[in-house]
């Protein structure tokens, strides 16, 4: 067992001991009449355990940082940390133990401690996010520096070819970082996916909430939600091995009949097959959220519409959908940001060629696919090639952020109107 593991165990034992010591001490000072205490004995126990744990853990953290700076050997460092932390724990324990008496408000101290722990948890979540964004930002800045601050060429350039020559005499490896083909590919696949998912998802939500009987609903809804549980890699090889070849075959057949060259040149890894399969994947997002929203439309509106002599579909079109619109827009935008960020399906099914094309039968590439390509395999992490992945990540992050903000705004605006 390593020294740090033994330290950890020792600290745990110490903290547990502190709890029992605090409880016993409280009972003792009350003269075996715990009723006389301000706080229950357990609270005194928690109080003591906390004041043992906090100094000990603080010492562990500080010692680890300082010792690394001083360049001590691993074993000495660990041993020193162990001794210091146990001492700090004992010191905290004995200081806190003196405060225990009948009037001591251990309960309130514990309450404040809980407050601090909860706050710390949420701060950790926020700090992590801030850290990720900061790292994206700084690495992106390094990338922009490497391309001489020609951010316009990155955002609006039409040619993407991130390979850079290692030797000056290599040809054809100039390194071009125009990201427009990636944006266009992402947009096309997202569009195809939404063309599939928006109507199918919305219509099945309407069927489930308005037309289906309770039994059908009980069976169909979980079945639909299974779609969301299929791993994306499974969708990916489904697209690659089944849908892709089928689309290619069909396109070639139609192309030969009609003589349209774009169809004759269809490839297996195409934007269409990736988009279609991704559309199927996000159907449950749209249908499940929309179904919840439609169910939340008050029954009184339906009754009102039926009482006017409206049929079911008129009621859905004229009353229920307008009332549920903000939620449905939210569901669709969520599906879009899911589609934009989806990686596995496109890596497998859309190909890697950074083609700037409007033809869905050609292979395209997306932001996420390129990030994977740039960062997998043997890479040096200060070349513009790998750094460009961070810039792409930043763009992706900014886009989904904007999308979420818009979704929130839309929801709020309509909610004011209709509630």
């Amino acid at each position, binding site marked *: 067992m390593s020294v740090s593991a033994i330290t950890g165990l020792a600290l745990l034992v110490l903290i547990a001991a502190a709890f029992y010591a605090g409880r016993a001490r409280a009972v003792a000072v009350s003269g075996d009449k715990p009723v006389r205490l301000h706080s229950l004995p357990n609270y005194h126990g928690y109080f003591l355990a906390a004041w043992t744990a906090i100094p000990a853990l603080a010492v562990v953290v500080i010692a680890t940082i300082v010792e690394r700076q001083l360049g001590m050997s691993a074993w000495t460092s660990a041993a020193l940390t162990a001794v210091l932390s146990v001492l700090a724990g004992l010191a905290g324990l004995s200081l806190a133990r003196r405060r225990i008496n009948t009037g001591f408000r251990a309960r309130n101290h514990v309450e404040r401690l809980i407050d601090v722990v909860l706050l710390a948890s949420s701060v950790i979540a926020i700090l992590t996010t801030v850290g990720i964004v900061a790292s994206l930002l700084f690495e992106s800045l390094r990338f922009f520096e490497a391309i001489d601050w020609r951010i316009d060429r990155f955002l609006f350039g039409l040619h993407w070819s991130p390979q850079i020559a290692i030797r000056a005499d290599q040809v054809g490896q100039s390194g071009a970082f125009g990201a427009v083909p990636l944006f266009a590919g992402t947009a096309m696949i997202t569009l195809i996916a939404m063309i599939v998912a928006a109507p199918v998802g919305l219509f099945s939500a309407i069927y489930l909430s308005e037309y289906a*009987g*309770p039994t059908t609903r009980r069976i169909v809804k979980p079945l639909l939600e299974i779609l969301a549980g299929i791993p994306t890699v499974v969708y990916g090889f489904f697209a690659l091995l089944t849908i892709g070849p089928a689309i290619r075959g069909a396109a070639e057949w139609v192309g030969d009949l009609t003589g349209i060259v774009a169809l004759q040149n269809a490839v297996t890894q195409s934007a269409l097959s990736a988009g279609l399969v991704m559309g199927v994947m996000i159907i449950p997002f749209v249908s499940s959220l929309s179904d919840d929203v439609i169910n939340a439309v*008050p029954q*009184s*509106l*339906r*009754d*009102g*519409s*039926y*009482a*006017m*002599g*409206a*049929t079911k579909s*008129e009621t859905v079109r*004229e*009353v229920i959908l*307008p*009332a549920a*619109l903000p939620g449905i827009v939210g569901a669709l935008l969520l599906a879009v940001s899911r589609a934009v960020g989806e990686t596995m399906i496109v890596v497998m099914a859309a190909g890697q060629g950074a083609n700037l094309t409007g033809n869905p039968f050609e292979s395209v590439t997306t932001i996420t696919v390129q990030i994977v390509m740039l960062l997998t395999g043997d890479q040096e992490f200060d070349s513009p090639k790998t750094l460009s992945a961070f810039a792409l990540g930043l763009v992706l992050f900014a886009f989904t952020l904007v999308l979420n903000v818009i979704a929130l705004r839309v929801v709020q605006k309509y909610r004011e*109107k*209709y*509630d």
Partner: protein
Amino acid sequence: MSTVYHDTKIENAKVELDNVGVTYGSKTAVSGVALRIPDRSVTAFIGPSGCGKSTVLRTINRMNDTIDIARVSGSVKIDGEEINSKSVDPVVLRARVGMVFQKPNPFPKSIYDNVAYGPRIHGLASGKAELDAIVETSLKKAGLWNEVADRLDQPGTSLSGGQQQRLVIARAIAVSPEVILMDEPCSALDPIATAKIEELIDELRENYCIIIVTHSMAQAARVSQMTAFFHLGDLVEYGPTEAIFTNPRDQRTQDYITGRFG
């Protein structure tokens, strides 16, 4: 259980119910209801909660069809025509029998579109001008025109509760129904808004057959000409409002209107 009928001649019966019963699944909500409701008058359904008065009301425009487990038996006739027969399309029937609910339920549309809703789905107006006219007359009849004439494009939900309820009444009137059903139309409103709606009901009586379910006996006494008292799924007593309130013949009616229960 047999119903006590005060002997009044109802010559112009608009709605006739005979041996009407409604069950929800295995639970019987009402049974054996027989009523002849006169045209161009207000008939009040009163009784304690859960007595089946709203259920009976909903048989008159077949709203019970929208509840899967509800089964209606017996005969309901409007102008002598059986509305539960297969040849009657409930969607068309509901254009003839309007309904106003307990809670104002304007649609998530503008004031104009709320009133134009019925005429549009039933194709009652042949052009924009005609539709405008229908909307204006309906709002005027509902006593709302002066308050909303300059903001017809605003959402119906932006109105106050009382205004919303009058908007809903205008929406019901817009398809020129013959019968208007009101299910506790004032229970969500304050006294001033209630007074306005009651005034409106009194005016509408000249042209429509109005049936109103109410928990307020004072309201029944104020607005109605005929009153039906329901108790535990039975129609107990039916007759002119004045006779029911001054000279109830069934002990349960008397107990209810004197406030001994309910």
